[in-house]
């Protein structure tokens, strides 16, 4: 299908390792969002891209988190020196852009830090 895809679906990392999570948005979608969803909680905003520009990164919890979207399509969320509290599902969403358009979510990447 032509939905949002994320890889890997599951990632286990040892504390201190770096991880990279990939998001392939729907083709033509201008806006891309990353969210973190802890167990039993709603998704929490991390960062937002409009094309290749990262317009809002206010939700990134620390400077260990870094996101990029260099060509305005695929995005990567990188977490350096992972900690146990980073364990969560990381969701990517894309939308056509504009304030009223709904977001389309990928299946998420479940990160477990041991």
């Amino acid at each position: 299908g032509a939905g949002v895809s994320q890889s890997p679906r599951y990632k286990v990392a040892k504390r201190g390792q770096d991880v990279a999570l990939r998001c392939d948005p729907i083709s033509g979608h201008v806006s891309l969002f990353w969210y973190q969803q802890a167990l039993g909680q709603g998704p929490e905003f991390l960062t937002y891209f409009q094309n290749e520009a990262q317009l809002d990164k206010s939700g990134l919890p620390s400077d260990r988190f870094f996101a990029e979207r260099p060509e305005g399509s695929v995005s990567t969320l990188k977490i350096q020196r992972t900690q146990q509290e980073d364990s969560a599902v990381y969701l990517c969403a894309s939308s056509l852009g504009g304030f009223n358009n709904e977001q389309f979510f990928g299946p998420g990447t479940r990160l477990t830090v041991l």
Partner: protein
Amino acid sequence: AQSVAQPEDQVNVAEGNPLTVKCTYSVSGNPYLFWYVQYPNRGLQFLLKYITGDNLVKGSYGFEAEFNKSQTSFHLKKPSALVSDSALYFCAVRDISTSGTYKYIFGTGTRLKVLA
């Protein structure tokens, strides 16, 4: 800051009965409200949104939601529940920062269980 609250962690309803999943909001200005559903091991799926216009919004899978400004609520409803409606439901509000960027603020979710 914008926020939404989902006061019920879980709602149980018998198949065929009407269902309601509650959401209240706190916003400055006009609220832009959304409902999403999350099935196990799948991403969130859009159900419906309220931007402006009629207070009763119809969405996917027979769901609808009623926007009530005086009660600051946006409850999700369905006239006749199906077992397949069992899932996790999230209410969300659009938030716009001073820089003009926007994001969703999600509630904590309500687990709906439809009993056969």
